[in-house]
């Protein structure tokens, strides 16, 4: 397993490193499906024996159906992993905090390119996930729909004619689908339009969260927009609704950047330049400062200010500067100061022009 973690660390994170449509503003698209096995209690009420049985049944289904490229997929048992390795899975968005905190019968299966994964015994028996770069929810849907069908050939899902897929929390019942897009919205933040925009999106029954999971968290100017309702619409209808709103958000962000360029060009250029200067010449960088400066440099790349700098290098630093990634790369536990020093060294190195 520790070998799997090291192989994972050596992987470029495909949803950040590869090109995707509208990638200047939409960083990545993710779809998750919640599924449960018929005849079993949900993880919240199942005992350890039942959880282990479910875990084996799902893992066996993945291997025999060839889902996720198994048996060549990565397989992790969080209960037997050390804290640092578990944090690494969290930073790579392969596992949720809730999943890692569970004590028994959990397993994470990951396709070797990390584009798809299955958390076994999170809140539901299966949380299937697909992530792709840029704004391409339809393409993510095709991948996850196939994966779900593949697993369903070996598993009997809990399904009701009227309510659809039955989930532990009634807020996920129906399609069991949560689709989300990670957006970089510095224009809307700098022009002060982000708060009314979030309010408007919330009224459309969609959720907006910062990268820390809260709507008020502006760190890195990164926001995740996702559907809230999972019942009463088909998957295609939900994705279309989300796509339409995100298309409008992308257009608003572009207008906001144009407005900034027209109204106060030098302030924007100064913001980008200072962000780059901080990352390129600092010797100690906190996580928050790094992420905010990376956002500034990303704007500069979009504006064509850094012809030698690739946007995917900046994207990868959003994850590479995470505490667990820095410590795994160093091969040892680092204290807070050592992490800040190590983060600064990584940014200086990666952002050389």
């Amino acid at each position, binding site marked *: 397993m520790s070998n799997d973690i090291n192989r994972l660390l050596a992987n470029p994170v495909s949803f950040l490193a590869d090109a995707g449509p509208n990638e200047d503003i939409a960083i990545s698209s993710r779809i998750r499906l919640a599924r449960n096995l018929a005849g079993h209690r949900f993880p919240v*009420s199942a005992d350890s024996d039942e959880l282990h049985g479910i875990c084996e049944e799902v893992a066996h289904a993945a291997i025999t159906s060839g889902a996720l490229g198994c048996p060549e997929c990565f397989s992790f048992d969080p209960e037997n992993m050390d804290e640092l390795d578990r944090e690494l899975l969290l930073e790579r968005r392969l596992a949720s905090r809730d999943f890692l905190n569970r004590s028994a019968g959990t397993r994470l299966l990951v396709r070797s390119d990390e584009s798809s994964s299955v958390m076994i015994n999170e809140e539901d028996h299966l949380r299937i996930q697909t992530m792709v770069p840029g704004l391409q929810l339809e393409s993510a849907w095709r991948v996850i729909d196939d994966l779900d069908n593949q697993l369903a050939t070996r598993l009997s899902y809990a399904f009701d*004619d009227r*309510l659809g897929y*039955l989930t532990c929390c009634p807020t996920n*019942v129906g*399609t069991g689908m949560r689709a989300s897009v990670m957006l970089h919205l510095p224009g809307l933040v700098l022009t002060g339009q982000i708060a009314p925009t979030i309010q408007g999106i919330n009224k459309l*029954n969609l959720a907006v969260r910062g990268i820390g999971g809260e709507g008020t968290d502006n760190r890195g100017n990164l926001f995740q927009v996702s559907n809230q309702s999972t*019942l009463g619409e*088909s998957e295609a209808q939900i994705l279309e609704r989300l796509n339409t709103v995100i298309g409008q958000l992308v257009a608003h962000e572009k207008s906001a950047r144009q407005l900034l360029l027209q109204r106060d060009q030098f302030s924007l250029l100064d913001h980008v330049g200072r962000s780059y200067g901080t990352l390129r010449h600092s010797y100690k960088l906190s996580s928050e400062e790094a992420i905010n400066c990376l956002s500034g440099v990303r704007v500069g790349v979009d504006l064509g200010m850094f012809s030698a700098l690739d946007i995917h290098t900046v994207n990868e630093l959003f994850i590479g500067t995470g505490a667990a990634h820095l410590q795994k790369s160093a091969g040892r536990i680092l204290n807070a100061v050592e992490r800040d020093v190590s983060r600064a060294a990584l940014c200086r190195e990666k952002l050389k022009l």
Partner: protein
Amino acid sequence: MLCDVCKKNEATIHIKEMHGGETHTSNLCAGCAAEKEKNGELSALGFNLAEMLCNLGKISSVAKPTRESSTEFTAVCPKCGWTLQKVRAFGGRLGCPDCYAAFAPLLSEAIRNVHRGSVHLGKRPQSMPQDGRTALEAELENRRHELDALVKREEYEDAAICRDRINQLKAQLGKCSPGEAGNE
């Protein structure tokens, strides 16, 4: 224990009422409780159970009974033994797939409030063939709720689209004999 109303199904919902020091217990199956809830008989017991569950589902803010009430509601899932107290303790989460039937009267209203409809319109496992008539009837009911809501909000353009869909569904149902499979 059998349901007091239909005397056929197992009672999974037990309601205790106290009037002038006397206790009266009703034991109901999920179907009869749903019927009573639909007729407003359960809501009259002092607090809206569905609203409470909805609040639970929406993340754990537990709505307290609105007035001092001596009504005690207990529902137990016959499959996993999950209780309303556990639903509350675990932020609206259920114990097993059968809890949806056991807590049906509570869930129906809550689900309508949380979601954009009360009927599944998405994919289904390939091993479970769709009963076309049930699906059409379900969507028709769903669209009627939607139309009411749209008219209340004075969103007439969307209401017109919804009305057209209702007419289309009625026409499809007219052509589809009972039990006949068909696509939505």
